[in-house]
């Protein structure tokens, strides 16, 4: 019997998230490219999911009845790789293949390259639809496995997202949870200047989703939200988590420059110090 999560308490999870943050910055610094900001905003939730909730099998990554985690904002790959390392899918050596030829850690998360990855992402807007497919298949199978999809807030500007938002309610998909990483920044600038989205929770609620808002850096709230989503049984659930892009590294925090840029040596050393 594969258990949920890793049986860790809040303190352990917070320590794990900090180790992940260090590895995120190391990966991006090591190759001189990648997306640290959205990895750092998402990592506390990723830690909550893998450490507390997801039923996955390190010895059998393709196990058919595993829970699915779909990272739709696939550029936040350092975040995913760092947690897959903590969970045991990747060795530390694997992490240093990030963005390198033949490496399991491709630039954007890819199910064909990396054990433990359920979806080949990279083009925004597609992950929710894929998660709906996984969830529908679980229902057809009569399985209790669940699907969890993480979306970026900028990603919500893609029209396909709203096709999926409508479909998930129409099909009463109750084994599906969406997590919106509301860090307020996208590639070019703040979301507010690129395409205003107003109240994201209200939008999901108006389509018929159950919605909960949390502080995406508060581990206690993260675990509560995950538990809450499991209790929503009449349709899909959405956790809108308010986060800080670049969280944990002072000069990256809320800074659009670090959506997709690597730190220089001085900045790297500063980050390692702040995350020690």
């Amino acid at each position, binding site marked *: 019997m594969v258990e949920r999560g890793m049986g860790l308490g809040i303190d352990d999870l917070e320590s794990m998230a900090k180790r992940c943050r260090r590895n995120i910055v190391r990966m991006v610094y090591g190759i001189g490219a990648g997306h640290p900001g959205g990895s750092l905003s998402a990592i506390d939730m990723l830690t909550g999911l893998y450490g507390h909730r997801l039923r996955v099998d390190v010895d059998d990554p393709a196990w058919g009845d595993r829970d699915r985690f779909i990272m739709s904002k696939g550029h936040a790959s350092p975040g995913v790789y760092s947690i897959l390392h903590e969970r045991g899918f990747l060795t530390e050596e694997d992490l240093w293949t990030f963005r390198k030829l033949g490496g399991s850690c491709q630039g954007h998360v890819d199910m064909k390259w990396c054990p433990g990855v359920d979806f*080949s992402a990279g083009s925004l807007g597609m*992950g929710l639809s*894929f998660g*709906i*497919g996984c969830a*529908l298949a679980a229902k*057809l199978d009569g399985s209790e496995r669940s699907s969890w999809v993480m979306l970026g807030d900028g990603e919500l500007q893609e029209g396909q997202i709203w096709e999926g938002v409508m479909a998930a309610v129409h099909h009463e998909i109750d084994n599906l949870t969406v997590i919106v990483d509301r860090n307020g920044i996208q590639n070019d600038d703040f979301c507010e200047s690129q395409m205003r989205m107003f109240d994201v929770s209200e939008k999901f609620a108006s389509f018929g989703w159950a919605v909960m808002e949390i502080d995406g850096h508060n581990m206690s709230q993260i675990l509560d939200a995950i538990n809450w989503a499991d209790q929503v049984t009449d349709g899909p659930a959405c956790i809108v988590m308010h986060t800080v892009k670049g969280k944990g590294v002072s000069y990256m925090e809320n800074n659009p420059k670090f959506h997709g840029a690597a730190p220089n040596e001085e900045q790297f050393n500063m980050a390692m110090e702040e995350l020690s």
Partner: protein
Amino acid sequence: MSAPSGGGASRDGYGAALLDMVDDDKVVVLEADLGKSTKSCLFRAEKPSHTVSLGIAEQNMMLVAAGMATSGYVPFASTFAIFSERAFEQVRNGIARPNIVVHICGSHGGIHTGTDGSSAQSIEDLAIYRTLPNMTVLHPCDDVSAKALTLALRHHDQPSYMRTARNKVSRSYSEESAKELTIGKGHVHRTGSDVAIIACGVMLNEALDAADILSKSGINATVVDMHTIKPLDTELVTKLAKECGAIVTAEDHSIIGGLGGAVAECIVSEHPVPLERVGVQDRFGESGDSDELLQLLNMKAKDIVKAANSAIARR
């Protein structure tokens, strides 16, 4: 070979094949509102539990299909050929790139679709899907062969795009002869050594009529139903180039990038011979009935005859 009597539209064959798979619990059918048109409605009526309606939202449909495929199901997702193109990047990044086995059916392809006009007449689908690694691209000519090829897709281990057509045409296969169809292998309907006419879809009938006309002036044509555009049967195409020395392609599709393009790419590498491409000459269609449009766009049997004479003259 004599053509069996009667007529059928390839979309009817797709629907009939889905119905044949109704007892297979791994088969799921996805629709984007056009089930009555693509004929997936036949499956829905028998097995609503395994039919997923996604509304008028093709992009979502493609990735829902991919998600189901990675969970052990074999999805058949259909819409009009032209609307599948709206989700081209979803097919590219979400299906072909991770090599997820989803079978896409685009119906109402080509100018043969007729009176709906140019917005509905996809004349580029075969070309664009052919460029994607891992994709198999099919375009059967009638209902009987469409049924056989759809059934063959059930155990095909790569994603596919199949274009079907709206309108009934004379059948070129019987239930018996369709059993010989293999994905990736052209089907030779008539043998002659003067010119090879390689056709697909509704143009196979025009090609067979053209061969009849040519025979009256002593020209013997081979006629092939190239129902699989990708992977192209390069062995057969090369053999025909060597034996006939002149080739004509005939397709209800742009002459750029489809069957004509695929055959050109093959022979220019393997055995260059004169090639004439009959199809839509880099323009959009318009409203009209199928035959009027074939006449307007120079895609009738007489046009294939002209192309054959031209290719032979250049030999």
